[in-house]
């Protein structure tokens, strides 16, 4: 077990009962400098909750018990428990949306949107971000211990779906006593979770913000995922999924999977403007297979950085969950059926250069919603950044989300000021 995230190993199996582990609490820091750019952190809690005697019934028919959900929370839940926003992460994301990543030390992956005074204002809302079931940052996944055998699950872990991820989140929301989420927001696979929430639990979702996503995974996307999975499985160190016990690590396979996937997150224009055909620290091509081009060097770097924080089997399971997602099929091929008589307010966001989850996929969602006369906003943001744009500083995305969330807060009657603390 050479370079798995240390923190992950610590997190797995740490909670025995339904307890809240407050790792870093009350982290409210004010920078006292007279500088106008005052940077504050939200009140952050890193917690895990283990559901010891609850069975998570999976769509495959299998059950998962016990199961643990690791999550970050920012801000304070108000007395009525009406100000909760659930942030859903993408395929290789995690719960650290607005807090420092324990393995990489990098800032949260969505700090452009989540934080004090940001569109998802942690002074005003209680923001939750959970590591998905099947993930590798503390929630139960293939690297967790199988209680039946006492060994790591590996490929004995049941195949999970987007629906299962959401059902696990429902257990957490229930345990926090939250009846209705003020908003559910996420991009890419996070957007799939948003759609699943809005479809299956519409009365529990006041507003939904699916970003750069689709109501079903396309054939092309399944194809790319298959390339990634085959790369992992072709690595001799994968050992049929038992690498944790064999003390090996399919780093190369997972890195190649990440490299292939990373290309799909960018666009031709973005790659061209970032790298062109520029050479990497050399004057001319070497007539060999070193990383002559900057783009090659960049991809290798992305691949190898990734394996330090991600579990190879988790990658297999989570890509599979995305492949299986199909809200059309669940409603006899008619997507409108997924949102029948919905009262949820929607804000659908797509990006013009996203070819992984193209604007037309968002438009299908919008058409299905209008067919129900749903309350829906739709912005297709002009961007050259490709699929990854949803993680980047796109001013039009940020202002649209800010406008949508504050209009929703007004409609729901959430006060403009910070909620009073609930005594716990």
């Amino acid at each position, binding site marked *: 077990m050479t370079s798995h995230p240390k923190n992950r190993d610590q997190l797995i199996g740490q909670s025995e009962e339904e307890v809240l582990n407050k790792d870093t609490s009350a982290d409210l820091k004010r920078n006292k400098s007279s500088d106008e750019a005052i940077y504050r952190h939200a009140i952050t809690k890193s917690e895990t909750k283990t559901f010891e005697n609850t069975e998570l019934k999976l769509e495959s028919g299998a059950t998962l018990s016990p199961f643990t959900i690791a999550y970050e929370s920012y801000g304070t839940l108000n007395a009525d428990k009406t100000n909760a926003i659930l942030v859903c992460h993408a395929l290789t994301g995690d719960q650290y949306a607005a807090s420092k990543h324990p393995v990489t030390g990098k800032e949260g992956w969505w700090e452009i949107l989540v934080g004090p005074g940001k569109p998802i204002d942690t002074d005003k809302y209680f923001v939750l971000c959970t590591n998905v079931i099947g993930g590798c940052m503390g929630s139960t996944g293939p690297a967790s211990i199988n209680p039946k055998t006492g060994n790591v699950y590996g490929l004995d872990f049941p195949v999970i779906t987007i629906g299962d991820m959401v059902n696990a989140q429902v257990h957490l929301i229930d345990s926090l006593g939250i009846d209705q989420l003020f908003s559910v927001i996420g991009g890419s696979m996070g957007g799939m979770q948003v759609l699943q929430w809005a479809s299956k639990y519409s009365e529990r979702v006041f507003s939904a913000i699916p970003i750069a996503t689709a109501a079903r995974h396309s054939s092309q996307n399944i194809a790319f995922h298959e390339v990634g999975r085959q790369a992992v499985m072709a690595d001799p160190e994968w050992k049929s999924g038992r690498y944790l016990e064999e003390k090996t690590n399919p780093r190369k396979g997972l890195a190649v999977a990440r490299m292939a996937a990373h290309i799909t997150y960018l666009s031709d224009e973005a790659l061209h403007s970032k790298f062109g055909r520029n050479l990497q620290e050399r004057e001319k091509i070497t007539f060999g297979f070193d990383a002559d081009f900057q783009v090659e060097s960049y991809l290798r770097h992305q691949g190898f950085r990734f394996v330090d924080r991600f579990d190879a089997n988790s990658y297999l399971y989570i890509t599979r969950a995305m492949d299986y997602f199909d809200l059309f099929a669940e409603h006899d091929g008619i997507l409108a059926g997924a949102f029948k008589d919905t009262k949820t307010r929607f*804000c659908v966001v797509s990006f013009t250069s996203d070819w992984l989850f193209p604007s037309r996929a968002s438009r299908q969602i919008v058409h299905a919603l209008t067919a129900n006369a749903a309350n829906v906003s739709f912005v*297709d943001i002009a961007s050259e950044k490709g699929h990854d744009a949803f993680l980047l500083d796109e001013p039009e995305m940020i202002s649209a989300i800010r406008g949508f969330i504050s209009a929703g807060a007004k409609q729901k009657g959430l006060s403009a000021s910070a909620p009073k603390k609930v005594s716990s």
Partner: protein
Amino acid sequence: MSNNQERLKTPHSIRHDHLIIKSMISPNARVLDIGCGDGALLELLREEKNVDGRGIEINQKNVNHAVAKGLSVIQGDADSDLINYPDNSFDYAVLSLTIQATKNPRLVLEQLLRIADYAIVSFPNFGHWKIRWQILAFGRMPVTDKLPEQWYDTPNIHFCTVKDFATLCKTINTKVEEAISINGYGKELSDDIPLFIHNLLGRESVFLLSKNK
């Protein structure tokens, strides 16, 4: 159609046809505004009539503006996207200074009355005496401060007069509940003035239509 709306708009004030449309809409109604621009009318109706408003707009920049203001607006095209809406899902469907830019005005109008109980349509009146005079005196397509484009670059491909519009309403068996026009001095011509006066003196007209049951 959005560029056109920009030009027709009096800067720093509420568009006159919007005020007339507002007067026709009852409070707390469900309103669909087709070709809503940056959402000026929806905002007005939200503030003053507490309506549950939605918008469709073809220009993405306008859509982003409207959504940032907290309005429920989607990017879409009146000609192709109205078919997605279910029957009778709104109280009012509004088409303000947009019908002349649609490819198939008759179809759009029929869609409005399928989606909503009432349709409100405002349009520039090509029967206005100044426009008649321009064609008569100069023999050329009219260009005015409100309609500044030349015939070859105007987005307005289906102009009509008040009389033409009233005839279309009859053809599709729609009842005209009310018709108000705005003359060249910004004064309103009320519903009890004969239609041919509207057709001659009205610069813009606003029609409230209902299904003929």
